[in-house]
């Protein structure tokens, strides 16, 4: 089995899907000759040519809008938004168009597009290169929202996203790009959208997380096992549709739930996760549900000190688990 970084796994999924299906093409700012500002699409233009690795003008609404039109004609566009922070000009296209083309046409038209965007902080990106924007999209029926936390999942979920008949937002935590590598399966495989995964079995406290927070939670869990605290870690992987059965099962497993995300708390994914647990397994709980999330400020500052204060860490998660374990 090959060991691949998170970023390499995403690149591989794109290259393999483009090779498998000539309807698949990528478009975005600097994705071609430059190979992407993070180098996700490096080498694709040499392999597939400039028509299928399309450097676009700097205009996010057109990137998404043109993708929608191309998909309507049977192509399978994978659009890159250079930073999730810059998706805002395309939000009308995503919410008013992509999310409802199937519904509004009574099933006549559809919109099989993927929108990839690096998100998240911890890279000195300050207010406009660090944000978590996923909840802008999880509220809207008609969209699927995927956030992988490991190289193997990143590849398998992107393959599923490209093959999906509906629009998928694929958010890549940019801190993960070169932070982690792992062995990924040989050959063609996919990971289903809408399915969470238990990353670590445990009995005392359940942590439910996604993206970079999963890696921090696993680090915290390893540390806490030395203190005799057993942590169960569920990686959501898909934020819409949420894998509610897996959430309930993990909540029942320990009776103590900590939801962790880098995005701020109010109306975040943690609120929906907490609500579904409250609706379906309140009487299986031994403690109030806890949420550890980004603070309620507009975005994370540039100053390293302030950024660190904003960001999650294994230590912060470990402290929250300890408190819950003692409850």
């Amino acid at each position, binding site marked *: 089995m090959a060991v691949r970084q998170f970023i390499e796994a995403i690149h591989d999924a794109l290259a393999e899907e483009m090779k498998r299906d000539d309807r698949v093409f990528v478009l975005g700012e600097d994705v071609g000759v430059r190979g992407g500002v993070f180098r996700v699409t490096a080498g694709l233009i040499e392999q597939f040519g400039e028509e299928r690795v399309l450097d676009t003008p700097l205009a996010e609404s*057109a990137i998404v809008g043109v993708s929608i039109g191309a998909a309507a004609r049977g192509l399978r566009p994978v659009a890159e938004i250079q930073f999730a922070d810059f998706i805002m000009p395309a939000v009308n*296209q995503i919410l008013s168009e992509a999310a409802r083309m199937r519904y509004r046409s009574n099933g*006549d038209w559809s919109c099989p597009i993927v929108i990839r965007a690096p998100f998240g902080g911890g890279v000195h990106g300050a207010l406009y290169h660090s944000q978590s924007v996923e909840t802008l999209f999880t509220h809207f029926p008609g969209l699927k929202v995927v956030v992988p936390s490991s190289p193997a999942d990143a590849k398998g979920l992107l393959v599923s996203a490209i093959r999906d008949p509906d629009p998928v937002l694929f958010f890549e935590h940019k801190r993960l790009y070169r932070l982690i590598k792992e062995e990924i399966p040989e050959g063609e495989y996919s990971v289903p959208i809408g399915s969470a995964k238990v990353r670590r079995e445990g009995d005392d406290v359940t942590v439910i997380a996604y993206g970079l927070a999963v890696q921090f939670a696993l680090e915290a869990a390893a540390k806490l096992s030395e203190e005799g605290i057993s942590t169960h870690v569920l990686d959501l992987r898909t934020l819409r*549709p949420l894998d509610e059965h897996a959430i309930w099962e993990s909540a029942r497993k320990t009776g103590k739930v900590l939801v962790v995300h880098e995005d701020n708390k109010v109306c975040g994914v943690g609120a929906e996760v907490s609500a579904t647990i409250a609706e379906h397994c309140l009487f299986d709980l031994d403690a109030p549900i806890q949420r550890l999330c980004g603070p309620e400020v507009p975005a994370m500052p540039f100053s390293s000190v302030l950024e660190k204060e904003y960001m999650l860490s294994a230590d912060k998660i470990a402290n929250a688990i300890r408190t819950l374990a003692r409850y």
Partner: protein
Amino acid sequence: MSSELPRHREVGLTDEDVLAMYEKMLLARTVDERMWVLNRAGKIPFVISCQGQEAAQAGAGFALDPAMDLIAPYYRDLCLVLIYGHSARDELLSAFAKAEDPNSGGRQMPGHFGDRQRNILTGSSPVGTQIPHAVGMALASKMRGEKSVSLVSFGEGTSNQGDFHEAANFAGIHKLPVIFFCENNQYAISIPVKKQIACENVADRAASYGFPGVVVDGMDAVEVYAVVKAAVERARRGEGPTLVEAKTYRLVPHSSDDDDRSYRSREEVAEARRGEPIERMRSYLTSVGLMDETKDAELRAKILAQVNEATEYADKAAPPDVSTLMKHVFAEGGTETNGRSTIH
């Protein structure tokens, strides 16, 4: 009649074509007027009109090949979608929001066209969002080496949206086979064109995207045909987009919920009516010997019968079944059911 060819033949339209254009224009006007009557009678909740823009749409529609060319219409394009194969019945089914409405099965307001089988892209209410879609359809056509073009229509107010600029710029760079068709009806609800754009014509904007912009008398179907036909041929040759601005006039309020007396004078509207497109077409056809009073009366009677039949059919047709509310959020077998998320 002089020995010169009539104008329509000079631009490549046969006598049958120009008569068919007139019939579609008249059908659009009759359906449109019927919807207002139904609205005022409390039978349908909403109408948005094409009145005044029939010639522009007929000219554009006849310049395209509905079998291969795609359209991304906007909410006033009733005449255009009738040319693309919809019937009076189809559009009245939409007005009554009935299950059989081919645009949306009664999900969308009237004027929100769409029909995949007929190459009509589904549209929405936020203005201008369809413009990049048409560019994407043209991109697909170019990538596959097909000859099909796409035409996207919109009003002059919409030409101020970022999506217009972003899409036109994208299409210009890649020389895509797309026609930007602006139906300038002089008003964006109440705001007159002089408060919408600082340049004289919307078409002037094309220069900055690197392709031609053409102004045409949008009350003259034959003139519009000639201009759009040239744009279609240019697109098919791989030479890129054209922005066509058809100067028209919106003869009625913005919609059934608008009262245009508050922002424009009756004199202005009466003056515009003197140049209205249906009458101009009838007068042209008469001048070239293709129409007379008897023929016109027969045609109008035939169309009225069609619209009467369509109204009765649509009124009696079944509404969508309430059990269909949750359908088509995702592909069948998709990942959400009952409005609550579940796994596969």
